């Protein structure tokens, strides 16, 4: 791993630290504010837990708590590993090869991200359950009476892997797009095979993006409630929800939430430690050309088959089940509610969240790449806390602080977008960070030596160069906001309906047709937006 990116020319960390004693105020001031904001859920959990009695300790130190925590961690590990294995070939195929209909696949393979996990799980149960639709299809010709259990670990693992691999994919694609082809060419010219080049040159360069993506997946899995509850895999987050739902007990729920956050912080520290001090940018003079397109040759069609298989399982299957529900309900005379307003609301609030979160993520990402001191590292790690916390906890934390200390903006769009920021900030930070790692800081220094102010050097030189990362970050936040539920339900302006709340409202009461319509619209609206973004990226 050492020497990645011709590190010999880059100054050492110590030299860097001395060269940049204090980051400019336009960076650290917003970053500190952002970090403070995202720590609100943690503050809330502490407040609630401290108000609890002895019962907390009895609950926490039961053997069962440990067991459930073990389940959560093993699920998070398995899902993270699977998503890396899925995303790596998909990212390479859709970013660097002559794969037929490459741009189409690029959009299609990122789509699972827009499917809410509760919808994905509901569909999985209906389609792949022991007596689901698949069993129905196999019953006549093959006499299959019952499929193996989908409930428990296998179902949760399958659904969460298929729905969350795009976190890794989007990060990876951005990194591949900015990877200097000269490195790979040098490796080939020195006699390495294509495979060895990929393994020894390309892959190490993708490590930050891979780690950032896998971390997001692991934390997402830790905090997911929709899929695990429907698929009956009892994780820690489920246990937290149970405290709210069965005992209406906020203190016990908070104590459990705190434990989850502590473990999430453990993961964050691990990932942070694995980063090391390698440099990932081109350090010599010269311009970066667009990367060469790999010819797939006879592998073209197997590659297409791989993409098709993933898209089939993660996108086409849920969509066709939803379509089936819709048609079945309509044929049975179910009336649908109009969804125009919900669609507009969803797009509007998601667009706003994407823009706001991106702006908030920039200073954090820049600081963490350019100023590698422990305070900054802590700051960047802190931005992940909200994402690792179950949505209901974040929502209640903001209810707590909003109703008390921010009454004028309580239950307004401003606070709602703020909540999305707390929840989704690290997705944007991760994406921006990994593309920023590939930019040589000397470029900015050159601009400054030519008389530019730090801010103008950053805005004029760095910002345009990290555009793929910005786009990926914005896309992630946009799609996550489209399907977000707990915070939207509790913190939106009253009467503010989105597609996600419409799906929830109908699905929770077994109106499958009425749930299918907004779910299909959600996927459609999200994919159109994604396609637009891809189009913008192309220009």
């Amino acid at each position: 791993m050492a020497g990645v990116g011709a590190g010999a020319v880059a100054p050492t960390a110590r030299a860097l630290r001395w060269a940049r004693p204090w980051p400019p105020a336009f960076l650290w001031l917003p970053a500190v504010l952002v970090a403070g904001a995202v720590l609100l859920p943690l503050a809330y959990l502490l407040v609630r837990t401290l108000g609890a009695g002895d019962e907390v300790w009895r609950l926490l130190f039961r053997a069962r708590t440990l067991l459930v925590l073990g389940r959560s961690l093993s699920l998070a590990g398995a899902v993270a590993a699977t998503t890396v294995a899925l995303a790596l070939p998909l990212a390479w195929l859709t970013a660097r090869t002559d794969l037929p209909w490459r741009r189409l696949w690029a959009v299609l393979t990122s789509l699972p991200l827009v499917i809410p996990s509760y919808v994905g799980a509901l569909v999985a149960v209906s389609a792949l359950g022991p007596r689901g639709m698949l069993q129905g299809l196999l019953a006549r010709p093959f006499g299959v009476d019952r499929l193996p259990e989908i409930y428990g670990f296998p179902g949760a693992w399958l659904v969460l892997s298929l729905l969350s691999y795009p976190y890794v994919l989007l990060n990876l694609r951005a990194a591949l797009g900015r990877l200097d082809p000269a490195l790979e060419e040098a490796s080939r010219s020195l006699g390495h095979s294509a495979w060895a080049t990929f393994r020894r040159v390309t892959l190490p360069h993708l490590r930050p993006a891979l780690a950032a993506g896998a971390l997001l997946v692991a934390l997402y899995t830790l905090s997911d409630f929709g899929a695990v509850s429907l698929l009956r895999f009892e994780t820690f987050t489920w246990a937290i929800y149970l405290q709210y739902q069965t005992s209406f007990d906020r203190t016990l729920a908070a104590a459990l939430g705190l434990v989850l956050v502590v473990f999430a912080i453990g993961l964050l520290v691990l990932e942070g430690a694995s980063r090391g001090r390698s440099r990932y940018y081109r350090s010599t003079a010269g311009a970066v050309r667009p990367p060469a397109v790999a010819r797939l040759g006879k592998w073209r069609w197997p590659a297409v088959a791989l993409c098709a298989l993933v898209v089939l399982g993660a996108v086409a299957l849920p969509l066709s089940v939803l379509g089936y529900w819709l048609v079945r309900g309509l044929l049975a005379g179910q009336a649908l509610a109009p969804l125009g307003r919900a669609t507009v609301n969803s797009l509007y609030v998601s667009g706003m969240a994407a823009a706001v979160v991106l702006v908030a993520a920039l200073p954090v990402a820049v600081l963490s790449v350019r100023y590698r001191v422990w305070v900054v590292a802590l700051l960047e790690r802190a931005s992940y806390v909200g994402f690792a916390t179950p949505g209901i906890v974040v929502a209640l934390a903001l209810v707590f602080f909003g109703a008390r200390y921010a009454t004028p903006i309580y239950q307004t769009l401003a606070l709602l977008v703020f909540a999305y920021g707390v929840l989704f900030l690290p997705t944007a930070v991760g994406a921006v960070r990994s593309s920023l790692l590939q930019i040589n800081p000397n470029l900015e220094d050159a601009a400054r030596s030519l008389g530019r102010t730090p801010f103008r050097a950053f805005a004029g030189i760095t910002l345009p160069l990290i555009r793929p990362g910005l786009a990926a970050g914005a896309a992630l936040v946009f799609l996550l906001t489209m399907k977000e539920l707990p915070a939207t339900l509790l913190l939106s302006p009253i009467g503010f309906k989105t597609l996600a709340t419409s799906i929830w409202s109908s699905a929770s009461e077994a109106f499958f047709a009425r749930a299918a319509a907004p779910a299909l619209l959600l996927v459609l609206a999200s994919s159109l937006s994604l396609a637009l973004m891809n189009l913008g990226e192309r220009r």
Partner: protein
Amino acid sequence: MRRFIAYGKHLRAGLLGKTADKGKENHLNPWRSRATTLVAGLGILLAACGPAAEATPTTSPPPATPTPAPSSLTVYSGRAEDLVGPIIKQFGDLTGIKVQVRYGGTSELAATILEEGQRSPADVFFAQDPGGLGAVAGMLSPLPESVLSRAEPRFRSPEGKWVGISGRARVVVYNTSKLKETDLPASIGDFTDPKWKGRIGWPPTNASFQAMVTAMRVSWGEAKTRQWLEGIKANNPKEYRNNTAVVQAVGAGEVDVGFVNHYYLFRFLQEQGEAFPARNYHPKAGDPGAIILVAGAGILSTAKNKAAAQQFLDFMLSDVGQQYFASKTFEYPVVKGINTHRVLVPLEQIESPSIDVTNLADTKGTLELLRQTGVIP
């Protein structure tokens, strides 16, 4: 005369209701023009979705309550919009009161109200189950006798903090291609028989299920309830997240029987037709497995619109409101003298146990028992 007054009010409310709606639209959608271009592509699909469900025909005049000026009302509803949206809209249209509703899960909204404390913007909490109302009972103001007395005594809070709005029966839902009604035991207690091994589905974390267990503790006693839970556990029941999932599983034949609320079945029958192979069975002879539970509402003591809130409850308990729940959501009215839907077993014919809701308040004891027996974590 009463009819005449109501008609005049209806007319006025129609106008007011419309202006109120417009105001809300402007408030919430200042971006509409810009965003319209964004979603132009979705136009076709949206158009196909058509208008909302048809308005409920008014069968009897709404209650004549004196309303000097139209006001506003904020409702936190743990009941889904698909269920209560139409009747709340009708209330707004008839009274001219601008009703704003926050929909969410009952427990999440209860937690929200607790976190908001004195600053809660909510006037009314409309909950899916008494557990949610009980959690915020300290923040509810006692209801006037005129509201309480509309509901049968067994369907309201003993302290007068909340009142039931609609009832649901606990039933055993069974797969009709595997079982006949005559195969089912009179008491839910007999499902501990080993012949039911691997054939039972239940939602142990569901509030209604837990209320049923509380009913068992009241009528059977602690020891027998524990035996029942352990007996069912020994039969390897399949756990599901909620009632919907259980009914779905019974229909698919994943399990043969399930312990649920009665009305979920009718959603499936509505969408999938009479061929959906599951039906409800009411246990007999005052069995706790046939208890009637309620969804209810209360008024917060911090409510800014108390008069409108009380009008809201009056309306939900009026003949119009009750008829809505009986005919549209397949629930049971909590007021005597309202006809139930023809597909339902009439309330009088269900041999439910005579348990006072007062005795269903001990949810803590039930949770403890469920934890001890390992039914819930």
